[in-house]
């Protein structure tokens, strides 16, 4: 099935072997793909990982249950809130603490804002992969508003570190409500503009329709999750099937499409932006008063056992698996990152397509490299 990697040159069949990355405009980070080409046609894609591997799992073994959460912000930096949420949930499962209602709402609000920010950035990045530069800058305009909201409340723009076991770290900033309202209004105006610029563009549709197809069975077998799997018709939204936080109390639809191509993945994410905005709209006027953090002990100790929590990040299912031996630090932590599994399907999806399709498909998977390498 595989031969050993030929890093340079041409293999025995006369196929060209090209290194895409670790520095390449299409890989959005330090992903390294060794692709085998027959002319313009891709015959094999082999990812080489580890350029940003920091062994976060090993580091977490020597960090306390309060500290390790923050290292997960550095994994999938575009959905750090949701990663933090997943870790906090796992610790809370062990501690058996009750989360105040206000904290739950804040967590969901922040999670959905993160999802919108992540999807909107992805929208720009995909358009750039396909050759349109302008959407990227338009995407940053809206993303900047979300970053400002985050900055005010959490003190940081990217790695927020806002979730703590038992709630959130600070209360909301007084401007939060006003700013989120302005954001919702902005999106109402601009989302149609986005559609006009990219979604209905004939070249864009030609470049993405039927490209990078993966069937539902294959998507499941490759462990794909998130919008990439939902575009193949796999119902896998953790928020719906195993609700956490207060997702069972808000109204939203799981966006499912059957086509399984790049365009479907695109449409799923564009729909998800709208769904996330509707969740924010439902919650922003109904933030309950009260504590934002439950009382917890200064030093957290989880009872001996295993704890697994699953959350839905912007890229898919994020799992935190904690093995505790009863000490102050986790005995073993495993992070199940969505990008890692999604990437493993790339070879299957792009065999036989053109180089341009490879770039489009890779863009549509929304890979974040630190999330894959950890």
């Amino acid at each position, binding site marked *: *099935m*595989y031969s050993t990697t030929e890093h340079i040159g041409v293999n025995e069949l006369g196929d060209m072997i090209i290194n895409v990355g670790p520095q390449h405009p299409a890989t959005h980070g330090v992903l390294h793909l060794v692709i085998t080409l027959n002319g313009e046609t891709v015959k094999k894609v082999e990812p*080489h*990982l*580890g350029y940003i*591997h920091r*062994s976060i*799992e*090993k*580091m977490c073994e*020597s*960090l306390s249950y309060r500290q390790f959460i923050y290292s997960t912000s550095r994994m999938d930096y575009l959905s750090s809130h949701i990663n933090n949420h997943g870790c906090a949930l796992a610790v809370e*499962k062990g501690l058996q603490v009750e989360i105040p209602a206000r904290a739950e709402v804040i967590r969901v609000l922040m999670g959905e804002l993160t999802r919108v920010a992540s999807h909107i950035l992805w929208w720009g990045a995909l358009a750039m992969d396909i050759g349109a530069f302008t959407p990227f800058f338009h995407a940053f305009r809206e993303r900047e508003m979300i970053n400002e909201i985050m900055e005010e409340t959490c003190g940081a723009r990217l790695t927020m570190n806002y979730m703590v076991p038992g709630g959130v770290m600070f209360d909301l900033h007084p401007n939060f409500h006003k700013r989120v309202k302005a954001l919702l209004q902005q999106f109402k105006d601009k989302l149609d503009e986005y559609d006009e610029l990219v979604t209905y563009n004939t070249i864009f549709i030609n470049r993405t329709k039927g490209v990078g197809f993966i069937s539902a*069975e*294959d998507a*499941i*077998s*490759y*462990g*794909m*999750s998130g919008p990439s799997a939902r575009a193949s018709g*796999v*119902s*896998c939204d953790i928020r719906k*099937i195993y609700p956490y936080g207060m997702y069972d109390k808000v109204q939203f639809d799981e966006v499912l499409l059957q086509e399984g191509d790049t365009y479907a993945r695109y449409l799923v994410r564009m729909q998800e932006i709208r769904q996330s905005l509707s969740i924010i709209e439902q919650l922003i006027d109904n933030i309950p008063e009260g504590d934002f953090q439950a009382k917890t002990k200064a030093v957290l100790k989880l009872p001996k*056992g*295993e*704890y*697994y929590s*699953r959350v839905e990040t912007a890229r898919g*299912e994020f*799992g935190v*698996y904690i*093995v505790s031996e009863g000490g102050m*630090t986790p*005995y*073993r932590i*495993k992070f*199940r990152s969505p990008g*890692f*599994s999604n*990437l*493993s*399907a790339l070879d*299957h999806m792009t065999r036989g397509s053109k180089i341009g399709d490879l770039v489009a498909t890779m863009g549509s998977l929304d890979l974040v490299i630190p999330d894959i*390498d950890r």
Partner: protein
Amino acid sequence: MEREELQQYLGGLGSLTFEEGGEWINLFVESGDFRALMEQLRRDEQLGFDYLFCLTCVDFKTHLTMVYHLSSTRYRYNIVVKSKLDRQQPEIETVCDIWRTAEFHEREVYELFGVKFMNHPDLRLLILPEGWEGKNPLRKDFEDEVNMIKL
């Protein structure tokens, strides 16, 4: 099927031991029976565990434990399959022809824990650079004087 029912059904599949507690059903299987059980879990119409969402290993200093988190997209069951491995000669059958996602996950476990997956098509280092064969950073006795921060 409810949890008890499912546990009973699973008990009939072979020689397994169940671990009490935990959010999901935890079952232990000997590494000899492991492959047959996994195939059954995937193919059984009543179960249909088609989604391997997490595959990892834990080093318990006396032994290694492989942990497979399985989910059924049809019935929404979740189970955890574990198998103890010898720490000196960790070997287990691959599952990457049953769940293709396992290919990358097994390569990751191979380099981080040194577990050898038999019949894996392409068991090479995935994340670590060349020259790290045989060093298994996520094992508890791994020491790196230069880069490790101890608290």
